[in-house]
């Protein structure tokens, strides 16, 4: 494969089985989209999201935040519909006063109301979707002056709800992209590890081969009838002080050593210190 990763036949079959959901032996665009889409990644790989990437934890936190934000509406509903309830009203009053004193603490108060809403509504998000903007309109009509002031103050504190949503969405997107980015960096790190391992394996191989060669050289040095000049002159075709590739080929043929053109070229490259394509 072009990316340097060589999966086996069984690996490819396994990947195909996972992607090809309708088992028609083909990967349709929808199936391809599902494998690429971020949300389905955990389903496809069978790993937990947190296992896939620790950044996902922060992604989940942001998702919770967005859920909490959706409960702002519930809070408003609560203000409009349940303000007659004495105990809850007390909390509302407390929250109002605390907001006036310290607007930054408002978010915290909101969370308390959300926890209340979680208890009362089975699924506040669905509730919110059902009621939609009508509730908001009703709310604006029903709410008393104090609540309107609160709303205005709240809007001042967070200028535009839509912009807040879009901000969170962008954060979500950023987080998504950072997840994708970090997953690619995670893969890249793995690739680099593989490459370093391959490099180390190469070094190991070079050492082993050189050891073998060194042993043979020492063995040859002990032979009384072997000397350097004679072995060099064996390859020499004339009285030149260097060997051409043709000289080398002739010598190798005389010694009955099988070789290819390529091998001779590499051999000359290795021992040609002057880069003149000859061996001195």
């Amino acid at each position, binding site marked *: 494969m072009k990316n340097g990763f060589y999966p086996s036949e069984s690996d490819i079959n396994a990947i195909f089985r996972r992607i090809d959901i309708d088992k028609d032996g083909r990967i349709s665009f929808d199936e391809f989209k599902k494998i690429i889409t971020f949300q389905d990644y955990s389903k496809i790989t069978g790993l937990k999201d947190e296992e896939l990437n620790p950044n996902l934890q922060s992604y989940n936190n942001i998702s919770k935040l967005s859920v909490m934000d959706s409960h702002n509406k519930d809070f408003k509903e609560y203000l409009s519909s349940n303000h007659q309830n004495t105990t809850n009203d007390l909390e509302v009053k407390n929250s109002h006063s605390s907001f006036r004193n310290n607007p930054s603490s408002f978010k915290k108060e909101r969370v308390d109301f959300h926890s209340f809403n979680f208890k009362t509504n089975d699924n506040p998000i669905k509730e919110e979707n059902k009621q939609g903007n009508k509730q908001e309109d009703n709310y604006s009509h029903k709410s008393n002056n104090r609540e309107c002031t609160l709303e205005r103050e709240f809007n001042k504190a967070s200028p535009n709800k839509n912009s807040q949503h879009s901000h969170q969405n962008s954060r979500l997107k950023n987080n998504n992209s950072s997840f994708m980015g970090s997953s690619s960096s995670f893969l890249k790190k793995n690739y680099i590890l593989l490459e370093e391992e391959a490099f180390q394996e190469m070094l190991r191989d070079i*050492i082993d081969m050189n050891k073998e060669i060194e042993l043979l050289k020492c063995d040859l040095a002990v032979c009384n009838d072997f000397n350097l000049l004679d072995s060099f002159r064996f390859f020499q075709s004339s009285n030149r002080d260097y060997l051409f590739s043709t000289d080398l080929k002739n010598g190798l043929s005389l010694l009955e050593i099988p070789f290819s053109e390529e091998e001779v070229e590499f051999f000359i490259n290795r021992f040609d210190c002057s880069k003149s394509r000859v061996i001195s």
Partner: protein
Amino acid sequence: MILPLDKEYSEIIKSRNYAKSELFVRNLDSIMCNETKFKFAQLLQLLISQEMKIEIWREKLNKMRNFIIKNMFEKIDSYGNGFFTEYDLSDYLNKCNVSNIKSDIVLLTNRFNRDNTGKVTYTQVHIII
């Protein structure tokens, strides 16, 4: 190409007398016994096959998309000198459990270091890989 790294063995070969040029006409049989000739042939064959094996490694590494020689060089050259010595190589090989034998490290350094300065530069590594 023929001289061993071991200085003693190297000196033995260098000190040996050679045949007079008049008597030697590309005939190893006249000066070497069959056993020596066989060893010489074996050595040449090993040298050739080593180059081919290294070429296969080169191809394999170059196929790897994220393989950058500079990164590998920087890992060995931990002090960032622009070159590495036997000691740097020894540290690296120890770290990655390739070898911790001094003779192995000398062999590998010698393979990279063509000019025998004791310092392996990036260019020298680049030529090999």
